[in-house]
């Protein structure tokens, strides 16, 4: 089993993701330079957070043209496991691997703080070790985390159980008061229909160790590892 962490110029959570996989989960991992196109030996690809190409244009809008993205689309089409965190989520949206778009936060500021999210779907390879409705503490850090999709799209997401995480209070209240950035229906993370591509704004790699304010993110990586172990071959 091997993880790959994509490095775009401007990625800045690549080393954090790498560290969690290698030093916390003790799993093999390598960096994938954005101009590389070979993903042959990899089982899970992480698109990390950051500001790919500076994100001076719309977030992720340039990164999706990087050579590696075509290979990642192929990889996903074949059922490979892909997780996009923060900027990685934004890139997955731009690349069309997940539905919807990302708008600026409604307060028009960058927001970095711990928030609470609630699991909506634990029947995925990313969330199988959580309980349904479990409340997780995780940090967000973004300018554009205000997810939007039209009514038909939202209905489809819901019908297919594609909303994986929603923002809530420490006790699980999911009213607008606990929506940090204006995102539609408090959506914090979604999965594709096939269930092999996850995008989420909160940072599980920043909440996977005892020294950091929360360890709730650890089980996302752990779920992936468990899933990959069980089904080494697709």
């Amino acid at each position, binding site marked *: 089993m091997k993880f790959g962490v994509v490095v775009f110029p401007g990625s*800045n959570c690549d080393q954090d993701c790498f560290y969690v996989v290698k030093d916390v989960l003790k799993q093999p991992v390598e960096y994938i330079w954005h101009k590389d196109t070979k993903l042959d030996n990899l089982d899970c690809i992480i698109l990390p957070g950051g500001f790919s190409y*500076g994100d001076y244009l719309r977030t992720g809008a340039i990164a999706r043209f990087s050579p590696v993205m075509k290979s990642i689309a192929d990889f996903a089409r074949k059922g490979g496991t892909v997780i996009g965190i923060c900027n990685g989520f934004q890139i997955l949206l731009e690349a069309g691997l997940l539905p919807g778009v990302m708008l600026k936060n409604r307060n028009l*500021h*960058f927001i970095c703080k711990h928030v609470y999210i609630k699991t909506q779907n634990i029947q995925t390879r990313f969330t199988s070790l959580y309980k349904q409705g479990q409340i997780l503490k995780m940090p967000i850090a973004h300018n554009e985390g205000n997810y939007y999709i039209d009514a038909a799209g939202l209905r489809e997401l819901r019908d297919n159980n594609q909303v994986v995480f929603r923002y809530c209070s420490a006790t699980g209240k999911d009213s607008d008061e606990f929506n940090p950035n204006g995102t539609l229906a408090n959506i914090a993370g979604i999965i594709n229909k096939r269930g092999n591509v996850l995008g989420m704004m909160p940072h599980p790699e920043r909440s996977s*160790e005892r*020294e950091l304010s929360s360890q709730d993110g650890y089980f996302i990586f752990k779920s992936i590892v468990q899933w990959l172990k069980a089904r080494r071959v697709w």
Partner: protein
Amino acid sequence: MVKPNVYHSLGLSDKEYQNILKILKRKPTNTELAMFSVEWSEHCGYLCSRKWLKLLPKRGKYKTLIGEDSGGIIIDGLAIIFKMESHNHPSQVEPKQGAATGVGGIIRDIFTAGARPIALLDSLRFGPLNQSYNKYLLTGVVDGIQFYGNCVGVPTVGGEIYFDESYSGNCLVNAMCIGIAKKDKLVRAAASGLGNSIMYVGSSTGRDGIGGCSILASHEFKEGEEKRPTVQIGDPFTEKCLIEATLEAINTGYVVGIKDMGAAGLTCCTSEMAQAGNSGMDIELQAVPRREENMQPWELMMSESQERMLICVKKGKEDHIKKIFLKWDLNASVVGKVTNDGLVTIRDDGKIVAQIKAHSLTKAPVYDMPYKKPRYLRELNKLALGKIPEPEDYNKVLLRLMAAPSITNKTWVYEQYDHMVQTNTVVLPGSDAAVLRLKGTKKAIAATCDCNSRYCFLNPYRGAQIAVIEAARNLVCCGANPAAVTDCLNFGNPEKPESFWQFKNCVEGIADACRLFNIAVVSGNVSFYNESPKSVIHPTPTIGMIGIINDINKTCAQNFKQAGEAIILLGYCREELGASEYLKEIHNLTKGDAPQLDLKLEQAVQKTALKAIEKDLVNSAHDCSEGGLAVALAECCISDKDNMIGANINKLNYDMRQDALLFGESQSRIILSCNSDCVEKVRKIALEFKAPFCVIGKTGGRVLRILNGIEELVSLPLEDLYAEWSGSLKKEIER
């Protein structure tokens, strides 16, 4: 003969021009004149300050490293490199880009030493927010810091923000960066080895920032001046790529030296790298990548375009280095070579346009500036407490202080900064200091920046001492052993003897306090001319300090943890109100003397707190500073909004004015909380170090209650305190 108006417009005096003629023994070319003007600017050359900076101790309890552009300490083979620098004038003129490029510049000073930047802190000062321009500056500066810091992937983990009328017309933006490296991977900012190549890497050169250091940073603001063109524009994306490429390049072992092209750009890099390496340099300007047409040699030599560096590379290894930078889509071109003639030779298409001895450029003249104690201090230092009415309602006063702009919580600011990227931030912003783990070790570092400039205005020597010891106290409250200092010295016009007296006294104060605590000053920066027709800033010697935590599991934060803890006061309260936030906010007075300071007592208190934390005896520790005991206690109660804990302070028994007891800013006080079975153990430690020790109350409930003797002075629900403390900055900004 060059006409005086030419060199005057470059910021050179008649005397300095005569000096240049003497050095060259001929008339300078335009390029040479430009080079002298930037290198001999106060900003780069430290003409006025150098004599006094020698007082600062370069050695302390940890092994120090003093480099050309930054400094640090070494622990267990790991170098912790850090520095603070000002970007005041650019921020006053163009707050977003001014602050952004301040952050970018200080980060480059760290990674050009071979260290990976792991944290940023910012010390910011503005005029009152009821003036719209000050609000524009605050929001612009915060926007600039988040724009640059977030993108470049270095967490902004701490800092301070103060407001005072003296900063209207001249805000202060001091940015500090911390980096780490294996000791043997450090690189100097020096060029050596005859025939080695000089490479230019990073962004191309434009006309931005010409005269930034000489015209903008080394003069005060005058009425109606337009200085925006002298501010540079930041590109954090390029900087992020530069960090990765540079560290990769250093890892090859082919890099002899690197220097950031910051203030004074190419001029500074060529002359200072040659000087530091005891060599010379021959540069061809045609090889310099540029983004504008028809740039003259003098413009290329003065430009302060951002995100550029000069590298000295081992002969024959140029292609290795070039490949790395090209991989990151960055410019990398060989622009010259190292010589052994001690000269900086600048050519344009082969033709020499400047040729100057490196050391005559870098050894700017040293001026012995006259100084004089300002006469107004005699009046200002007098404070007749009897004439100040005592408030009727202490609850009201406490609530007002909690909402005071300098005390109120700064969530609105630091939530805009990514303070967690790199996953090292163990204690998040909002406590006494930030704590960062050092991955792969059991250790952590704590960092803070501090300066109460009102103290420094009323008593520069003691105010500066307090800045040092308060920074140390903040670190101790996190469980860290204070280790080393970087200072950013912000003052008015040094040509005015009163301003220079403030500078001299502050430097002496820092030097004496650091010596007593055995802490070295490893790096720093001086910013003069911080004045405008509106005001002269209060003297502001900002202290950035790093502390070492030996066991990451033994850190501490300021908030009470649970009901039933004993609350301990180390140190004691004096009847003093001079220079306090209380006098300023409630009585509108900037008067009296800075608080008294007994350095022996301070050490006793700090040692007691540190040992108690290291022995895992205490649950929280918080320093008493602006707003005094009452504000500090309130912060202990409410700073963890998910777990607010009340307190009943019923064992104080002081015979003094109640307002002085509650809001006086006596130094050398730390509030601890611990489980009741640990009280005696903490008392024993206090006895060992001879620190005054007193159990003053107990945690619990949803109210902060403070009694003196049997008289109840304060009784406030935590929700009320929290509302004032947490919401007022945002409210003020959005008003």
